[in-house]
């Protein structure tokens, strides 16, 4: 079984900056650009806008029957790699060789139409994923049973619960039987029960001896399903190792150092005395310092500071802002009146003020933490509105089955009742 299923050599993908953020050009832009191009070309050679390599110089091989995990932070190039291997987009450099039929699950429910019934969508989605009609027909009952939607199979899917919708969408995809399966973060959607079901199906697929390439932020899923993993960072392959080792490396070394900001003595202005900030950190639920936290897990913001003399009425707090500078909230460690009385005067010493940000609260995106230490109407000791930035990953958050950006800095899990009147 040492045949090669996937061979990737020096693979690279270049995106022109401006293509991705602007999404599309207008004719006018192009005319303007064309008129300006000769001059720009004289000045700076080709491609004046520059470009980024989302993936660069990546080489690896996957044997038949192997289940390979792909891990890395957001923007590391994982999705780009999967898009190339599933032929959605072309590489800009290098080459890849794929032996066998590829099924890709970059998203569940691609092409589902809300007006069509469950039955109709199974056929449509199956055809989009590359199944033949005869193949869909033989698997039809199995798909319906897996999705547990027998009663609603002739109801338009727009009337389905999100759980039913997801189950059906995943069921179709899961019954695709390619020789090589490429799976992106599809398991990040849905409730715990659904995720368990998906993981179970994935391990079945893996046991059947298929070749699987599996991308996830869910380290426990990666550990459970794969024996070996590759780690991508900034578009490059950093490590290929047995999964446990790769996950450890990813969690510990180099990759999570950013979720912390420290202050040296000479960085703190003299007016701050006797308050002296030492560090501010973002820690995940497992108390590891992280640049990226999951929106579905609680995380803590810890402020470490030194008081060189006692301060009366001190409050140490944080501002949370979006990258665009909108405030999300401000909170102080003595907001609670009891706490305020208890710490009326803080003696000199070293302190740690920690606050827990609850799960299911922040939306995905990058946020900025500001630090404030003051005594109300007496003195502001220290303020840094841009002390630290961190990223919130919304995998598993409410509404993630619609792959769209949600406006607003918070993404709470709210209870909805839907009734018919």
């Amino acid at each position: 079984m040492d045949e090669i299923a996937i061979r990737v050599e020096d693979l690279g993908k270049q995106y022109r900056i401006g293509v991705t953020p602007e999404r599309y050009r207008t004719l006018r832009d192009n005319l303007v650009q064309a008129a300006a191009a000769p001059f720009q070309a004289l000045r700076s050679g080709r491609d004046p806008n520059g470009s980024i390599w989302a993936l660069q110089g990546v080489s690896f091989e996957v044997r038949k029957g192997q289940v390979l995990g792909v891990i890395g932070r957001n923007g590391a190039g994982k999705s780009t790699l999967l898009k190339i291997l599933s032929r959605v987009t072309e590489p800009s450099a290098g080459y890849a060789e794929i032996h066998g039929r590829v099924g890709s699950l970059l998203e569940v429910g691609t092409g589902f139409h809300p007006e069509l019934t469950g039955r109709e969508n199974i056929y449509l989605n199956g055809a989009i994923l590359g199944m033949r009609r005869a193949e869909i027909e033989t698997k039809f009952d199995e798909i319906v049973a897996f999705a547990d939607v027998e009663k609603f199979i002739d109801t338009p899917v727009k009337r389905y619960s999100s759980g039913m919708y997801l189950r059906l969408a995943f069921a179709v995809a899961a019954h695709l039987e390619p020789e090589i399966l490429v799976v992106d973060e599809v398991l990040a959607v849905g409730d715990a029960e659904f995720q368990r079901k998906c993981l179970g199906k994935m391990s079945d697929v893996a046991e059947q001896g298929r070749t699987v390439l599996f991308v996830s932020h869910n380290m426990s899923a990666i550990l459970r399903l794969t024996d070996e993993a590759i780690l991508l960072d900034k578009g490059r392959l950093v490590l290929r190792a047995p999964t446990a080792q790769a996950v450890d490396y990813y969690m510990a070394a180099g990759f999570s150092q950013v979720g912390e900001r420290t202050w040296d003595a000479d960085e703190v202005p003299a007016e701050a005395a006797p308050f002296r900030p030492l560090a501010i950190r973002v820690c995940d639920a497992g108390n590891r310092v992280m640049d990226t936290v999951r929106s579905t897990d609680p995380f803590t913001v810890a402020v470490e500071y030194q008081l060189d003399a006692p301060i009366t009425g001190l409050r140490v707090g944080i501002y949370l802002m979006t990258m665009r500078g909108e405030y999300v909230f401000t909170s102080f460690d003595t907001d609670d009146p009891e706490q305020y009385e208890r710490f009326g005067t803080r003696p000199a010493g070293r302190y740690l003020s920690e606050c827990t940000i609850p799960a299911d609260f922040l939306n995905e995106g990058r946020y900025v933490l500001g630090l404030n230490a003051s005594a109300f109407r007496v003195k502001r000791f220290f303020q840094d509105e841009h002390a630290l930035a961190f990223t919130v990953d919304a995998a598993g958050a409410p509404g993630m089955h619609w792959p769209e950006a949600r406006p607003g800095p918070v993404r709470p899990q709210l209870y909805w009742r839907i009734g018919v009147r």
Partner: protein
Amino acid sequence: MAQTSLAQNPREEVIILRPSRGWGALNLGDLWKYRELIYFLTWRDLKVRYKQTALGAAWAILQPVLSMVVFTIFFGGLLNVSSDNVPYPIFSYTALLPWGVFSKALTDAGRSLVTNRAMITKVYFPRLVIPLSSVLGGVVDFLFAFVVLLGMMWYFQIVPTASVWMLPLLLLLALISALGVGLWLSALNVIYRDIGYIIPFLTQLWFYITPIVYSSSEVPEKWRLVYALNPMTGVVEGFRWALLNTGTAPGPMVAVSAVIAVLILVSGMFYFRRMERTFADMV
């Protein structure tokens, strides 16, 4: 183990992915492999259209019929436009049928890549499937509207000529033209969203340069072949000739139209294939 799996898979598919440059091959075999998807997407568009609209399939009939009524009152009645000795209602309706297929196919195909962008960025399939299936959807509407035409022919006591067998070929010519133009527009629409605004305007202009409310016999003889550079000229005049027996066979005009239509289609396919590789990154 390797032996048995090899035996089950005598012809294993090997796909090589590498950057491509310049003009590529059309790779129509791949399109054939995905013929079921073409069918399903066409079926989806029809089903959704008929489910979502109150009048459903009646729209396929109402549009040409209402247009015919208005044209008959204003062009046939008030302006007294010549209609090759055929009653004006049926003269214009016969032209409105292929025109309807063409304009709908062109509009739908032109927008198809952008409206299906979710699929394009997530799954591989030959991208040609998308504009192709949106063109085919119009044929069903055509068939509904055609039933009305048969009724009108019975009412006006018009017997189709022996050349009626040409109709499917003429319909094919209309589809080829629409697909050809649709391929150009859809690929351009991915890059320049201006195309979305150009399409309605383009079909409106195209309507007037096609002999629908008037006859091509109004065009001076020496200009007719130039006039037939618009592939829809040949289609419309061919329809009238085969069904209503209007004058001489428009053979040369149909021939010119067919050549142009094929040229547009082939160039459109090559352009589409060339642009195809950037669709997922740009759409």
